C-alpha cells in the first residue's frame, strides 16, 4: 500500500514537473510515444481480421494483460472505464462525415430534393465559402446546397453539410443576411452542436463512440444513431443555448468576413413577420422575439463594424430571375 502510494505521488510530481516546463513538453507527443511503445506488434504472417479481435487489445491496458499483470476480468473492467471516458471525447472527422452524409440524404429526401439553378447555387457557395473560411474549424470541408421547398428553413448536418431552402432565400433582402444565416449553420458544425447533444444523451452515447469500421459492420446501431440525430435536427431542435451560441458565432463569422453584423438579426425580424407560427422553423428554434432581442444586444457590441456593407445590390443582381 505504501509502495503504491509512493508511486502515485511520483507520477503526479512527474506530471507537474513535466507540464511545468511546458515550453519544451508536448503532452500530445508524449502520449504518441507511449502509444507507439504499447501498440501490439503487427503479425505479418497472420494479418489481423477486420472484425473485432478476441483476446487482449492494445494500449497500456492491453500491455498489462499481455504481461500477465492482471487478469481478463480486471482488464475488461479497465477497458469499460476507458470506453466510458472515450464516449465523452469528440467524434473523429471521418465518423462525423459519415453521420453528416447520411443525414444530408434524409434532408434531400424529406424536403423536395435540390433546387436546380446553377447560378444561384454558385452564389450561395461563394458566400458560404467566404464565411466558412473564417470559422473556427476550417479542417472541415463545407458544402452548400439549396433545397426545393418553399418552407423557410436552413439545416446543418455534422461534417460540413449546409442547406438553405429556396423559401428562405426568397425572404432575404441582402447578402449580409445570407451571410448571417449561413454563419449560424456553419457555427452548428464548427462547434459540433448535434454531436455534443447526442453524446450527452445516455441512450446513444455508446454508439456515438464507435469508429467508422464499427459503423460499417453494425448498420443497425449506425441507423439508430442517425435516427436519433434526425429527431433532434428535424423535430425537437437543439437546446436553445446551442441555438443562441450559433447565433452569436454566426454574427462573429459574418463580421470577420466584413459584412454588416446586423444581417442575421434583420433576417430573424423578417422571419417573425412573414412566417406563420406553425412553421417547422418555430418548432426547432427559440422564438424569433427572444433571438431578435439577444441579437440586437450582440450587434450593439460591434460598433466598429456598424458601417460594414450589406451588399443589397449584389444580392439583387445575383438572385434576379433565379428565385
Amino acid at each position: 500500500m505504501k509502495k503504491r502510494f509512493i508511486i502515485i505521488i511520483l507520477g503526479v510530481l512527474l506530471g507537474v514537473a513535466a507540464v511545468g516546463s511546458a515550453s519544451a513538453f508536448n503532452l500530445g507527443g508524449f502520449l504518441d510515444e507511449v502509444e507507439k511503445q504499447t501498440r501490439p506488434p503487427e503479425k505479418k504472417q497472420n494479418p489481423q481480421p477486420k472484425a473485432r479481435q478476441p483476446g487482449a487489445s492494445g494500449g497500456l491496458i492491453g500491455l498489462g494483460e499481455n504481461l500477465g499483470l492482471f487478469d481478463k476480468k480486471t482488464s475488461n473492467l479497465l477497458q469499460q472505464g476507458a470506453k466510458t471516458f472515450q464516449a465523452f471525447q469528440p467524434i473523429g472527422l471521418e465518423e462525423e462525415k459519415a453521420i453528416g452524409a447520411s443525414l444530408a440524404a434524409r434532408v434531400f429526401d424529406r424536403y423536395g430534393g435540390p433546387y436546380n439553378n446553377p447560378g444561384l447555387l454558385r452564389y450561395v457557395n461563394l458566400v458560404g465559402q467566404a464565411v466558412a473560411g473564417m470559422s473556427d474549424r476550417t479542417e472541415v470541408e463545407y458544402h452548400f446546397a439549396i433545397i426545393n421547398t418553399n418552407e423557410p428553413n436552413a439545416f446543418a448536418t455534422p461534417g460540413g453539410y449546409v442547406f438553405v431552402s429556396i423559401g428562405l432565400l426568397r425572404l432575404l433582402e441582402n447578402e449580409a443576411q445570407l451571410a448571417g444565416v449561413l454563419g449560424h449553420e456553419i457555427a452548428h458544425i464548427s462547434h459540433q452542436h448535434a454531436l455534443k447533444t447526442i453524446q450527452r444523451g445516455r441512450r446513444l452515447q455508446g454508439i456515438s463512440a464507435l469508429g467508422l469500421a464499427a459503423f460499417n459492420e453494425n448498420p443497425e446501431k449506425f441507423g439508430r444513431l442517425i435516427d436519433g440525430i434526425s429527431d433532434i435536427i428535424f423535430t425537437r431542435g437543439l437546446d436553445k443555448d446551442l441555438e443562441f451560441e450559433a447565433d452569436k458565432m454566426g454574427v462573429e463569422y459574418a463580421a470577420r468576413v466584413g459584412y454588416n453584423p446586423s444581417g442575421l438579426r434583420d433576417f430573424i425580424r423578417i422571419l417573425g413577420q412573414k412566417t406563420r407560427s406553425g412553421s417547422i422553423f418555430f418548432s426547432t428554434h427559440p422564438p424569433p422575439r427572444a433571438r431578435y432581442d439577444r441579437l440586437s444586444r450582440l450587434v450593439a457590441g460591434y460598433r466598429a463594424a456598424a458601417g460594414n456593407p450589406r451588399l443589397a445590390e449584389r444580392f439583387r443582381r445575383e438572385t434576379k430571375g433565379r428565385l
Partner: protein
Amino acid sequence: MRSIFTSLVFAAFLLQTVGALWSPPPLAAETLYVKTNGTKLRAEGSARAKVVTRLRIGTPVTVLMKTKRFYKVSLAGGRQGWIFKFKLTAKAPGAKKGGSRFAEVLGGRQQFSARESASGSSIRGLGPATRTYARNKGISAQSVQAVENMENYRVDLDDVDSFLQEGRLGAYAP
C-alpha cells in the same frame, strides 16, 4: 508487480488530468496556424500587396507584429510576410484533443477509434455505412446522388478571393 502496474495506469490518468488543467505561462513568441489551404503570405500588410507565397492549412507561423487586419509573421526557415489575421488560428487544424489521445493510449487505437475506413483509404464518395442506411430507410437514389453532387461541387479559391475583392470584404475591406 501487478499492483505496481495498476498504480502506474492510475498515475498516467492523473498525469493527463494535471496536463489538461495546467495553463503554462505564455511564451515570448506567439505561434499560430494557417486555417485554410492557399492562404496568401503578402509582402506588406495590405490586400493589394504582392503575394510572396501561398501557405497550406496547418502551417505554423510566429507572430512578429499585429495591425488592425494583418499580422506580420515568420515561417520556419526565416521567411517573413503578412497574413490577414482571420486566416490564422491558435489551434493547429485537425489536432486531436488530449482526451482522445489519452483514451487511445490507454485502451488501444483499434478498439475505440478506427480512424481509417474499412478500405484503409480516405473516402471519396459516400461510404458503405451511409449507403446501407439510405437503402434501409428507403431514401431515394436521387437523394443519395444529390449528396454526392453536393460533396463534389467546388468553387475555385481564386473565385472566392475575387468575390471578396469585388465586395470589398475580407482582406480587401477598407
